[in-house]
């Protein structure tokens, strides 16, 4: 077990925090362990931005071990748009490099007097001047920091100009296209005058039983490589199932108001593979390699978009030009903005323009027409720079809608824009969005996979029809617990690794013997802990909701007119979770069963 490095940017000081073994054994690592570390200070009044807003980068007990799809890190804090618990995990190589430099986490406090970057290696720890880098896009900044430190093998996590300008959905970027995109933690990082964090190390991550772990790792990677889902991801990228999603009506179009997208064949993962793909890219040690390398008309090789970006700038805005979508995604990556939230917020602007609730007088003269990629480019630039209507878009969809008296048109939950898996096509996403600790998130539970048929009976995740209602509530909760385990490990959710194998890997790596039930309990513990943080930050049962658009039937497409009965689903969900039906709080009994009596005291005093 390695320490967390604490950096006080105000004082220019470094210190080390030991991770209590008891916390490891309760929360595993990653996001859940971060929640335990931050629990006390993520309480009112707290600051969303600036010196007193904590920012914690965490790895997991398998990070950097070349285990199955575990080359990731997670960054946690409080979201500037949601004002609640925020977490976002990211692939690439930065997380393993942090562990190789000797740290399992990095806690950032304070605020530097001027823009700086942090440089961590086995030779030392430095806070360096970054004034010459401030303003650079995320690609340029990474290259400049690497040049400045002059050391081979360095990996850099950084923010872009959007974060510097306080865009509430700005992210943290590494390895040219790997993103911790959601919940706006880039804005938190930039508010501390921290442009980048460069890391390099050569230590092997601590593994308690190397021989046992090595054998398990080889078998797990071999099995993962043969997995059908992994093969689709490798061959077609994360948009490999776009056609199926559209067929089910689960791929939102025209800002969630159209149930089909006839041009899906032009924007799918298959289309990208057939027309533009030149290779795959991968995160540290991953055998899936879902990343796309594409070559467009200009001949330059670049990152190809993943499913969410394709939907956000494709069907969502009725754009069917995959080259344009690719460039829109790259522009967001360079400026440092989450493609889901920005495409969603632009979609809201298009919707309000169509309804006549905003006009050219509100849009700096721009006519917002569905399918017009050039206008979307303009809006992205204006948002990153907070110019004109871009200053309103930069506040996210809830704020944008509220500004124009149309908050109920915004397709968001608790300030986080809905991702592109429509619960009218796959009903489990209704609960996944309504109850996620970070807003309308598809990574706390990618339940759409279960609704497509990806069951795991060995851990009680069974199949329910894609339009089932409250009867699947307990199944969703179970899936959330299991994904909370993933976000603790920190393991990519695309890795179909048998639960028993995961328990063995974790045991061999950590030296603490785990079984699947204990891991699921740790998942439930993490989920309830994040719930407790949000309750203390003002969340109530009223916040467990869906936006109006998702409760209205679509006349066309594969949803077949279905709408989720969210009220009924929530009743079943609260019961399954052991939450109080009136307040939405985990009951005292639930918290004590999960071995968190101190949280019970805080919530029920």
């Amino acid at each position, binding site marked *: 077990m390695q320490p967390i490095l604490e950096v006080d940017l105000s004082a220019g000081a470094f210190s080390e925090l030991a991770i209590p073994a008891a916390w490891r054994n309760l929360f595993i690592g990653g996001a859940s362990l971060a929640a335990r570390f931050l629990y006390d200070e993520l309480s009112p009044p707290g600051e969303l931005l600036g010196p007193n807003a904590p920012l914690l980068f965490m790895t997991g007990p398998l990070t950097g071990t070349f285990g199955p799809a575990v080359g990731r890190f997670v960054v946690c804090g409080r979201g500037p748009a949601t004002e609640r618990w925020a977490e976002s995990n990211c692939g690439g190589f930065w997380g393993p490099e942090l562990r190789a430099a000797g740290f399992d986490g990095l806690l950032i406090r304070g605020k530097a007097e001027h823009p700086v970057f942090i440089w961590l290696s086995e030779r030392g720890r430095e806070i360096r001047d970054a004034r010459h880098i401030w303003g650079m896009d995320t690609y340029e900044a990474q290259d400049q920091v690497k040049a400045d430190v002059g050391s081979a093998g360095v990996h850099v996590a950084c923010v872009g100009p959007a974060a510097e300008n306080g865009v509430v959905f700005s992210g943290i970027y590494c390895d040219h296209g790997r993103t911790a995109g959601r919940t706006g933690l880039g804005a938190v990082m930039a508010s501390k005058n921290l442009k980048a964090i460069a890391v390099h190390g050569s230590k092997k991550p601590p593994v308690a039983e190397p021989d046992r772990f090595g054998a398990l790792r080889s078998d797990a990677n071999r099995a993962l490589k*043969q*997995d*059908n*889902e992994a*093969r*689709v991801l490798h*061959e*077609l990228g994360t948009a*490999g*199932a*776009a*056609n*199926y999603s559209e*067929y089910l009506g689960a791929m939102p179009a025209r800002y969630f108001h159209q149930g089909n997208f006839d041009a899906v*064949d032009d924007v*799918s*993962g*298959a289309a990208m*593979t*057939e027309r533009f793909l030149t290779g795959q890219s991968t995160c540290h040690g991953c055998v899936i390699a879902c990343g796309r390398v594409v070559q467009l008309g200009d001949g330059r090789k670049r990152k190809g978009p993943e499913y969410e970006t394709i939907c956000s700038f494709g069907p969502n805005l009725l754009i069917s030009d995959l080259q344009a979508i690719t460039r829109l995604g790259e522009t967001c990556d360079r400026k440092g903005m989450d493609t889901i939230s920005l495409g969603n917020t632009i979609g809201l602007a298009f919707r309000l323009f169509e309804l006549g609730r905003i006009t050219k007088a509100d849009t700096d003269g721009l006519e917002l027409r569905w399918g017009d990629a050039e206008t979307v480019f303009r809006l992205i630039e204006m948002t990153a720079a907070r110019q004109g209507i871009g200053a309103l878009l930069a506040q996210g969809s809830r704020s944008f809608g509220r500004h124009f008296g149309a908050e109920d048109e915004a397709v968001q939950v608790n300030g986080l824009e809905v991702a592109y898996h429509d619960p009218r096509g796959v009903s489990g996403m209704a609960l996944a969005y309504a109850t996620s600790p970070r807003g309308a998130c598809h990574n706390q539970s990618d339940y759409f*996979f279960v609704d*497509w*048929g*990806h*069951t*795991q009976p060995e851990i009680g995740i069974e*199949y329910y029809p894609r339009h089932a209602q409250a009867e699947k509530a307990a199944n969703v909760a179970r899936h959330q617990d299991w994904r909370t385990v993933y976000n603790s490990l920190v393991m990519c959710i695309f890795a*179909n690794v048998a639960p028993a194998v995961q328990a063995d890997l974790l045991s061999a790596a950590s030296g603490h013997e785990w079984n699947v039930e204990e891991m699921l309990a740790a998942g439930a513990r993490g989920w309830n802990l994040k719930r407790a943080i949000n309750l203390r930050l003002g969340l109530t049962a009223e916040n467990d909701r869906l936006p109006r658009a998702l409760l209205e039937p679509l006349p066309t497409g594969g949803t077949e007119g279905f709408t989720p009965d969210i009220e009924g689903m929530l009743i079943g969900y609260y019961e399954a979770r052991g939450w109080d039906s009136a307040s939405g709080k985990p009951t005292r009994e639930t918290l004590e069963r999960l071995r968190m009596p101190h949280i019970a005291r805080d919530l029920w005093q």
Partner: protein
Amino acid sequence: MMSVLFPSREWLGALHEKLNTDGHYNSVARHWEGDLFFDIRPEGNLVEAVSMYLDLWHGVSRRVEYGATLASLPRPKFILTAQYGNFAAVLLGKLDAMTAMMTSKLRVDGSLGYMMRHVPTVLDFVRCAREVTARVL
């Protein structure tokens, strides 16, 4: 349409006829170009492996062969391999076809991209196969 025992020569013949006379399948699969080889591994009441071959093209079944071997065929576009119990469960509606694929209960060799692009065809093929299945071993 006669409903028959799976797996059998009669079952494959019935499916061939069904695919060629089912208007919905003929329409949905009008762009499908590819042959299928089913490798059904012994399990339970099936004591020996069974193979079946279907040449599917533009919404019709051009040729089927029971007991075909890969050595006797040009390489099929798709080879679908599973234990007998999983094939039977799909045909009886106890296992969703997508579930079978996503949980690797059904091994697919061939272009997954092509298959994902033609999900409606795949699902309608399964519907036809279910409709000709009266019973399994």
